[in-house]
């Protein structure tokens, strides 16, 4: 830790000098940016060509998809998006509120670990999607069923990462705190929590992705409301271009919520790069 990686420092200094100001750096990277645009263009071209193949007539072209996206009923679409997003937010929030304290307790105490972590460990290999039928049996309302699924999917990564964070704190940090006379409470707020937060945020980052996956799965099965149901219904009613509009919307929303979690992490844990 204490040694400086001189080669890296020198290399980055040389690079900075070679690049000069920002705009010049941008200019020197023009071939790279062009190549990236070519990449997306090629992808759309191959997709269009693919949709023209005789045995892939059912596959819509990018133009078809764009067309049906433009003809979308904005109001209905916004309702679906908001329904899915609110389910994700609720399930994710409950998972964080329950999972983080639980993970900290399990990480702290061996007794709680044996008592509470054993069932968690046994349940983890069962994919959350396999819980859908039981969730339908248990929850009379579709909303609660889907919120439960997003909660369940998000819960495990949060608990696991929190436990890992707490149990991997460097012993020297704790000893330093103790020898400076910190009480258990101070030790928790000043040492354990700051050291664990980055790992907790890794868990939250994974969890928001799983929550989106679960909301789509639950909505596809329940087939009533939300972006997952919209995508599945587009298939059932043979409005094939709409399938891809749905997929793209799911992708964009998932991506935006990951960015949100990452931004929050940057805000909360400024000491970690």
């Amino acid at each position, binding site marked *: 830790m204490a040694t400086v990686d001189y080669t890296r420092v020198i290399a980055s200094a040389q690079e900075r000098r070679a690049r000069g100001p920002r705009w010049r750096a941008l200019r020197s990277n023009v071939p790279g940016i062009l190549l990236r645009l070519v990449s997306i263009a090629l992808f759309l071209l191959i997709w269009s060509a693919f949709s023209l193949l005789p045995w892939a007539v059912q596959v819509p072209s990018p133009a078809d998809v764009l067309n049906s996206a433009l003809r979308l009923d904005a109001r209905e679409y916004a309702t679906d998006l908001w329904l899915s997003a609110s389910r994700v937010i609720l399930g994710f929030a409950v998972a964080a509120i329950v999972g983080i304290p639980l993970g900290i307790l399990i990480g702290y105490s061996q007794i709680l670990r044996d008592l509470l972590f*054993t069932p968690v460990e*046994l349940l983890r290999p*069962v994919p959350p*999607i396999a819980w859908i039928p039981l969730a339908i049996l*248990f929850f009379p309302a579709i909303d609660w069923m889907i919120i439960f699924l997003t909660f369940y999917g998000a819960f495990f990564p949060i608990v696991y990462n929190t436990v890992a964070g707490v149990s991997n704190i460097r012993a020297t940090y704790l000893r330093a705190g103790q020898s400076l006379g910190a009480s258990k409470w101070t030790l928790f707020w000043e040492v354990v929590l700051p050291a664990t937060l980055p790992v907790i945020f890794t868990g939250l980052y994974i969890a928001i992705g799983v929550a989106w*996956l679960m909301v789509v799965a639950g909505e596809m099965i329940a087939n009533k409301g939300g972006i997952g149901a919209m995508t599945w219904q587009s298939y059932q009613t043979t409005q094939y271009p709409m399938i891809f509009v749905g997929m793209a919307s799911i992708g964009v929303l998932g991506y935006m919520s990951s960015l949100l979690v990452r931004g929050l992490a940057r805000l909360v844990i400024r000491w970690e790069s």
Partner: protein
Amino acid sequence: MQQSRRGYPLLRILSLALIVAAWDLLVRFRIYRFGYIPSPESVVSAGAQYLTSDVFVTDTVASTIRIIAAWGMSAAIGIPLGLLIGWKAWFSNLTFPVVEVLRPIPPIAWIPAGILFFSQIELSVIFICFIGSFFPIVLNTIVGVRLIDRTHFRAASCLGARDWQVFRDIIIPGALPSIIVGLAVGMGINWMALVAAEMIAGDRGLGYRIWEAYSLAQYPRIVVAMVVIGAIGALMSIIIRYLGHKIVPWQQSTIRA
């Protein structure tokens, strides 16, 4: 925190016993909606019946073949792709934007498109599982290459190594630990995608059995199929972790499935 703890095995057994007892009582006294959930006894008897039937064997074989086919294909395509993206900037610029655009779409959202692409059930299920494991494998491979110490490359070029020698002796062994992590993560997501695909679009397999048990109101069998899926999934991740330790013994601690 406390590194040298040994734990209390009795407490673990107690914990499980408590869970099963709570489950049994909640179902027996029909508390809230637990009356709709199968009881532990009914699950055990349904399990004994299912595990000795031929359907169990055909389901397990069908699901395992799908998983292995999808996983193998995503490794065969994803690892070389990731190595090249991590290594050559021009190749990264050319292909990585597409990977980045498609990656946020979860495998479940590909189910209708998968059915559309492949009219056959078998191929669409394999395709959806392929999507599930492809992205973690590609991304972990790229990270593996990018994390290789730059001095290795400089040393190699000082010693006059050719491109393919760099690839063989630096890129591949350097990225291997991260690739194995990607393979393990991919296997986990594969099971999730398999269950979803078989539930929605399947004709057989363990995920399909869960859904069939639900629609035929054979509720105890739902739990049996869940347990079997969990057990096989756990077994596969143990095997991958074990093989990972064998393949990269110099990196013991980083491999966590």
